[in-house]
């Protein structure tokens, strides 16, 4: 791998799904023409946030090779991941990219002991450092603040959600991956335990050079740990940039709405103005132009007709005519 080759390089990927019955068959683009890259030199935490159904999970699953893109390419360390065929290539790929799932209670078979997953992983992936299988398991568990003593002989239901999620992370770390793909890893975890997982991610990035794609609805934790954030809406990335910039001063109207809708945990910030929500989802998917136009307060005539390009503004990219070539003089500050 050369020095300046990206770790992950997503080129214009699209995933179409057919929805509806036999009579009203429609195609929706769950992910529409998304490009994204993560650099190899410096580990980072990239948050994917946005609407429900905007394609975050679909995007993550394409990166993990669980779903095949309809169009576009995903390069991992320069290699097209759709060209992976043999078990050996598959193992090499999985050694580098590991998933963390949403529901820690679902991530392990309830009828199996937890350690069996740890041994299985250690057995199937070659160690990058030396050491026995036991040592590798123990050091992965230590990284997440657990030890084999607490895990041995235990079944999933004997641990709390937070502990289980840490076991999940430890299992993934045994393969010593360069990238973790975590789809809502804390949404099922109790508030009193949530920060332990979030802090763990931060620690993995800061001290162990693991990059993380962090999918979440919880923008407060996103702000707390991530470097960059990508906001998705109806299959598109509508704004992407450093988290401090995007959340402190959102540009895209959807990001602004999202930012305003976050409920801060103190009783002084209650919002008042009412918002319009989409009524019929498939109609929005089928829209021409900007998919947010019908709900957007600052829409321009062009928004209804032509899809806006992704433009660079103030250290971030925004997919909105207000900041595109045509609307630039209007509102952009």
């Amino acid at each position, binding site marked *: 791998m050369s020095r300046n080759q990206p770790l992950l390089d997503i080129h214009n990927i699209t995933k179409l799904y057919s929805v509806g019955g036999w009579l009203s068959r429609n195609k929706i683009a769950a992910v529409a023409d998304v490009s994204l890259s993560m650099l190899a030199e410096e580990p980072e935490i990239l948050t994917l946030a946005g609407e429900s159904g905007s394609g975050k999970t679909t995007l993550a699953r394409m990166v993990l090779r669980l779903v095949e893109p309809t169009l576009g390419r995903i390069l991992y360390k320069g290699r097209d991941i759709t060209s992976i065929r043999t078990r050996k290539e598959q193992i090499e790929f999985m050694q580098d990219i590991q998933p963390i799932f949403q529901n820690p209670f679902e991530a392990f078979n309830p009828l199996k002991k937890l350690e069996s*997953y740890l041994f299985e992983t250690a057995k199937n992936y070659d160690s990058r450092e030396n050491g026995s299988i036991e040592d590798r398991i123990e050091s992965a568990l230590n990284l997440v603040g657990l030890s084999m003593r607490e895990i041995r002989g235990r079944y999933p239901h004997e641990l709390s959600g937070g502990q289980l999620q840490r076991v999940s992370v430890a299992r993934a770390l045994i393969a010593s991956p360069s990238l973790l793909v975590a789809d809502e890893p804390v949404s099922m975890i109790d508030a009193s335990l949530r920060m332990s997982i979030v802090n763990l991610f931060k620690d993995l990035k800061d001290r162990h050079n693991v990059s993380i794609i962090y999918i979440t609805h919880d923008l407060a934790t996103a702000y707390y740990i991530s470097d960059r954030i990508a906001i998705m809406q109806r299959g598109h990335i509508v704004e992407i940039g450093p988290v401090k910039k995007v959340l402190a001063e959102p540009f895209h109207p959807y990001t602004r709405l999202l930012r305003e809708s976050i409920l801060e945990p103190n009783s002084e910030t209650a919002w008042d103005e009412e918002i319009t929500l989409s009524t019929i989802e498939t109609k929005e998917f089928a829209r021409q132009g900007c998919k947010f136009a019908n709900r957007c307060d600052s829409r321009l005539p062009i928004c209804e007709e032509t899809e806006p390009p992704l433009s660079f503004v103030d250290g971030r990219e925004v997919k909105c005519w207000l900041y595109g070539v045509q609307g630039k003089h209007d509102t952009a500050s």
Partner: protein
Amino acid sequence: MRGFLRVVADLYRSDPRCRFAFTAISIVIMFALMSFVSPQDPGSSYYAPPNQPPSVAHPFGTNSRGQDMFWFLTFAVRNSLVFGVITAILSRIIAISIGLIAGYKGGIIDRIMMVINDSFVVLPVLPLLILINFIIREQMSILQLAMVIAAFGWAWDARLIRSQVLSLKEREFTYTSVFSGTKTSSILISEHLPFVMPIVLSTTINNLLWAIGMEVTLAVLGLSNIGIPTIGTTIYWANQHQALISGVWWWIAAPVAISVLLFVALYLLVVGLGAYLDPRTRLQRMKGVLSDERA
């Protein structure tokens, strides 16, 4: 083995259905095992006075060929049971492999397997079996008959298993195993099989019942190897000798009574075991025992 005995003990203690089933099945099996100490060979005849009603000397009476029904039936029940078990095992092997593989692999493999599967589901089983047995009945041993019947007894169950695996493979723990580098075959066996075990078990017993019933049907029609004593051929011979008309009702009543006992017991066992093996109750049990131990 200790685990198995504990399960049996658990079930025996807590579930009256299972208690009855275990008792009845043990009686039937003991009865079949007594064939090994039978003073009479099932092939010999006229060693006893014919057409005797049940008495102390001949608890199930004797038939028109001078055979003691008690000892004769020990052989018949043994053969029927062996036949049923072999059929059930053979058809389970097919059903489990096809169900697991088709469900997990999906795509073209699944489609091809399901076309074959569905052909077997819609085939009219009885007429076909009659045809096959009509052609080759003379030479058929119990094993061969079991193979023929097993070939028709797996398709529906394979579909059931497949549909469960279809949902299991989308569960997150399957992905955890995939990303642990686990081979597909071990995922199927160690992750998915325990979840399909309840249907596997209940369909095994159903299949056993079906196979024994099928054997009776074919035998009564005279379409199996009537030289081998089974529950079916016993009834066939009783009919041939017009047992009911001549008042030798025990010739038919004895095999029918034993099969009814066996069928009811196996049915209750399906129900009881199904509840016990259900992963949800299994999990609750695991949790329950735990808090109990700690308390």
